[in-house]
């Protein structure tokens, strides 16, 4: 309610002149505040609950236990043990992002061919929303029931003569985690890529066909180039998604596979020597840097996308 009334006052008090003549600084500050007053609750909230924690992580990454500046944490975060977990995390994310993006795009295209108000569409869109946003922990258990050492698929395969666990497979290692991740990456791809596919105009295909283009030429010269930026952008989003994921891997492995989020989790939960208090923050900073690089490429791709598919 208070937020509402603050916003309301701003609306009334706002002079909103088109051209403001040059004024002294204090007045300009005051004018900025009244001009942005509807934004203040939002800025204050995100500042306290998002800005401050992130700032403390970045600051802590460069401090030792007594708050003295040091680069030791950063060095340790890039050392052998933790450097390898960054590599594992990036490999897992890249693999599941590519698989999720390819299969998700195929599924999205197939679903678009069905009736716009049909049952298939509604089921797929609802299921995608659930699996992509809610999945983590429940999915881990669903896969324990499926491919765990006594899961039904494992037992069926053993009965058929393929003992996958004897063959070196484990749900609780890299391959197993990758299989579970793909299961929530495909639905996320369907959610983020479907709008781009919907933006493809039937007229483009008709025009190409009228001009005598083959199907291959249509995909090579029209659909492919138009869809490539949104496809890559979605792929990057999937990468960031699995790079940040913690719950699924934790529920499956209780921390055995060395992924960066798992390492940070165990550092925070105090399963380590006390002189490494801020090492988790240095690893966190590393994660932010990786995701930030990926997301800025994503943004750039998105801008190219909106040129055609708005």
């Amino acid at each position: 309610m208070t937020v509402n009334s603050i916003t309301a006052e701003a609306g009334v008090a706002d002079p909103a002149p088109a051209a403001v003549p040059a004024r002294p600084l204090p007045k300009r500050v005051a004018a900025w505040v009244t001009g942005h007053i509807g934004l203040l609750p939002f800025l204050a909230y995100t500042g306290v609950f998002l800005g401050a924690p992130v700032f403390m992580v970045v600051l802590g990454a460069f401090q030792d236990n007594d708050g003295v500046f040091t680069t030791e944490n950063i060095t340790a975060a890039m050392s052998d043990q933790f450097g390898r977990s960054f590599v594992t995390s990036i490999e897992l994310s890249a693999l599941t992002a590519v698989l999720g993006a390819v299969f998700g795009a195929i599924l999205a295209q197939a679903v678009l061919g069905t009736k716009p108000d049909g049952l298939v569409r509604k089921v797929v869109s609802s299921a995608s929303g659930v699996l992509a946003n809610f999945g983590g922990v429940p999915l881990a258990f669903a896969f324990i029931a499926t491919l765990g050492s006594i899961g039904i698929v494992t037992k069926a395969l053993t009965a058929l003569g393929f003992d996958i666990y004897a063959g070196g497979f484990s749900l609780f290692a890299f391959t197993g985690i990758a299989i579970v991740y793909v299961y929530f990456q495909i639905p996320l791809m369907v959610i983020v890529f479907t709008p781009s596919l919907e933006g493809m105009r039937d007229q483009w295909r008709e025009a190409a066909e009228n001009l005598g283009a083959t199907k291959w030429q249509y995909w090579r010269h029209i659909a492919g180039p138009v869809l490539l930026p949104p496809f890559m952008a979605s792929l990057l989003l999937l990468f960031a998604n699995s790079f940040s994921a913690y719950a699924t891997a934790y529920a499956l492995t209780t921390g055995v596979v060395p992924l960066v989020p798992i390492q940070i989790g165990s550092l925070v939960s105090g399963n380590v020597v006390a002189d490494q208090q801020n090492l988790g923050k240095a690893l966190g900073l590393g994660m932010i840097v990786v995701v930030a690089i990926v997301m800025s490429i994503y943004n750039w791709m998105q801008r190219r996308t909106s040129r055609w598919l708005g």
Partner: protein
Amino acid sequence: MSAPSTKGRTVRRWLILTLFGVYFLVPMLASVEFSLRDVNDTHSLVSWKKLLDEPGLFETLTTSLWVAFGTVALTLILMVPTVSWVHLRRPKLRKLVEGISLLPLVIPPIVLVNGVLVVFRDVPEVISGTPVILVLEYVILALPFTYRALDAGLTAIALPTLVEAARSLGASWPAVLLRVVVPNIRSAVFGAAFLNLALVMGEYTLASILLMDTFPVWTVSTGQSEAGVSVAVSLLSLLVVFLLLFVLSMVTGRRHREVTAPIAPTPSRGHS
């Protein structure tokens, strides 16, 4: 196009859909089977019965529902006025608000919680030692969806006209927000609220590191001793959330058709 190729395309499409359907259903069916297992390769409802006696189920579920309710309420109180104000008064600031709202996509939850532990170490126990802190941080985690849903909803309506009409008829600003803006973006508000709910009911990272006994935390800890019960609970929660979302898509789908139908009839996809 000629009939055979259209037919071939339809067959291929349904083949793809069936394959994906099987892929996504197998783990669900496996969960059903797993949750029905009893000793010595027999099946019974024993896990489902145990579920009701398991200590903590109802307590943690209640906690999670309260957190979900608080998150949805706080998110809407914060974001509906903010996004409306930006749309109405300062369209140029949209980029700024969007940028900040999408930031949580760049900050992995496990990193955010690391900072939360430091920042809120010294605040009163009421905030940091209870699920209140989860509500406050889940609003942040939900910002990207919330912003997109509300922004899309407000872009789709003639906001300035509606607000001017209401104001010139003497409505106060709170009345404009509650009785003009919100009803017009009802489906966006529902969508945002629902995604918040799904996020809160499934969130594990923050809750477990902050040592809160929420439903997902309970599921994982129970799973370590009673796998059958955890599988049953997981299956149940997936189904409940799926049904909620499905009902929501039915409701909003119908509304969408009502609005668009008279203006622009949907161009037929199967052009000959």
